[in-house]
């Protein structure tokens, strides 16, 4: 379980997180929604200690990771897989070596075992046979899938997805959504995704949390969020610039 307590973070004097309190339970997939530049990715990076807050705590399996230095954070971070927005594949390595990286860093596996697990991970994301390619030779969707393969190859307990479907066409985006669901069911991982793609959020989330002005503004299941009377939530999920200008419609469908 991950527990976030009174998390505050600012950059160059501008507060981004103003006291976030939230819990992520084992086995669930939580989607964090909110405006662009609202601190969603910042919050995600706090979960595995990539950023340090000014105040507050992040408990991962009952251990507060905020006071830990980089060396002591390393074993905690190995519980996580992280899909970065741009996939963040290492340019100098082939796709195979990228996916093999977290396994080779453990230094406890034989190369034949590494190769087998990499092939399995590539198969899960539908990239069998593409292991010899460099990241520059891959399309955006393939890079995202390769990033996902690298995130899951170490069989992490927690998977963090930063904008998993951004920049992809609807079909590719849906492929990623299916992959996330498949990973949750197959590997039983706890997932936290940051997105403003509501179609994706409804599809993959067990719970949706809305981050607004540096705080968690609303939390609920996809159905609860869709039915929420909160004007801010409605404005965001409908994607309207000014909710007061929207003509109410009883037949509005959100999918």
């Amino acid at each position, binding site marked *: 379980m991950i527990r976030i307590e009174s998390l505050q973070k600012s950059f160059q004097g501008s507060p981004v997180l103003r006291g976030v309190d939230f819990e992520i339970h084992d086995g669930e997939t939580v989607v964090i929604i909110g405006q662009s530049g609202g601190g969603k990715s910042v919050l995600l*990076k706090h979960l*595995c200690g*990539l950023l340090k807050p000014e105040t507050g705590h992040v408990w991962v399996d009952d251990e507060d990771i905020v006071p830990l230095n*980089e*060396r002591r*954070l*390393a*074993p905690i*971070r*190995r519980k*996580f897989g*992280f899909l*970065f*927005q*741009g996939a*963040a*594949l*290492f*340019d100098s390595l082939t796709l195979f070596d990228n996916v093999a*990286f*977290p396994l080779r*860093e453990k*230094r406890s596996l034989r190369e034949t075992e590494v190769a087998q697990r990499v092939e399995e991970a590539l198969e899960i994301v539908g990239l069998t046979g593409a292991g010899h390619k460099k990241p520059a030779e891959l399309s955006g969707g393939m890079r995202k899938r390769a990033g996902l393969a690298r995130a899951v190859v*170490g069989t992490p307990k927690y998977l963090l997805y930063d904008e998993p479907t951004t920049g992809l066409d609807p079909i590719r985006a849906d492929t990623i959504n299916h992959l996330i669901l498949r990973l949750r069911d197959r590997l039983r991982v706890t997932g936290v995704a940051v997105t403003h793609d509501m179609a994706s959020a409804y599809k993959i989330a067990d719970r949706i949390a809305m981050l607004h002005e540096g705080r968690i503004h609303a939390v609920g299941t996809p159905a609860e969020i869709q039915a929420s009377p909160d004007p801010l939530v409605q404005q965001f999920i409908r994607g309207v610039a000014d909710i007061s200008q929207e003509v109410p419609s009883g037949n509005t469908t959100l999918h």
Partner: protein
Amino acid sequence: MTALFTRLWQALSDLLSQFGGVLLLFLDVIATTFIRRPRWKETIEQMYKIGWQSQAVVIITGAFTGMVFAVQTGLQFHKVKMDTAVGPVVAIAMLRELAPVLTGLMVAGRVGAAIAAELGTMKVTEQLDALRSMGTSPTDYLAAPRFWALVVGLPMLTAEAMACGIFAGYLVAASMLNIDGAYYWHNMLKFTAAKDVLAGLIKSVFFAAFIAMIACHKGFHADEGAEGVGRATTEAVVVSSLTILIANFFIAVVFNTIVPI
């Protein structure tokens, strides 16, 4: 006036902050080297990129510096009938100053820029965060192999530049200045000693550490976007080149105090 002092204070605190950052990175590299298992594969790869692939630049720099130095000193010494002193003068200059400094500057330009650009790009494309998210320290995986590759490789390149400069100076002296080759070598060996070679090689070890740490620090702290990477690259070259030139003086003074000429 107050504004001037504020700007000066800001510049001084920026300088101290940069110096502190580079020093902390250096200490982290040393600690990592002793705590973690050595990364031989990455270090050898970097030695190939940094050392082997810099040879052409270093050979040309060393050779032409030796040649021009032989021509200039030869023409001047000819006026006072000291032509045979060209050998020792070229050798001492190449061993103690020209080879270490010019090799350091060329490598700062070629390798320092490449390191800062590569690590800067990794920073802005979140590849450094990706490394950290997998429990791998960027210091361990990226900075330490580059540091050791430079610390081992730059003295070798400097030795190569020394040899090329002295030999090219000999060719010029013998062919263009009509100096007897035997006198060139004899006088050179008479007036040079192992400590002259050592003075140059010790300098190059310091220069290697400066280039590696400044370039890695600039890359790791590059600002967002292409402009940020460009600025980090430029700063890496400028700061490491200036550091080499300034440190050269102090290292020479300290070395001459410890090992008198």
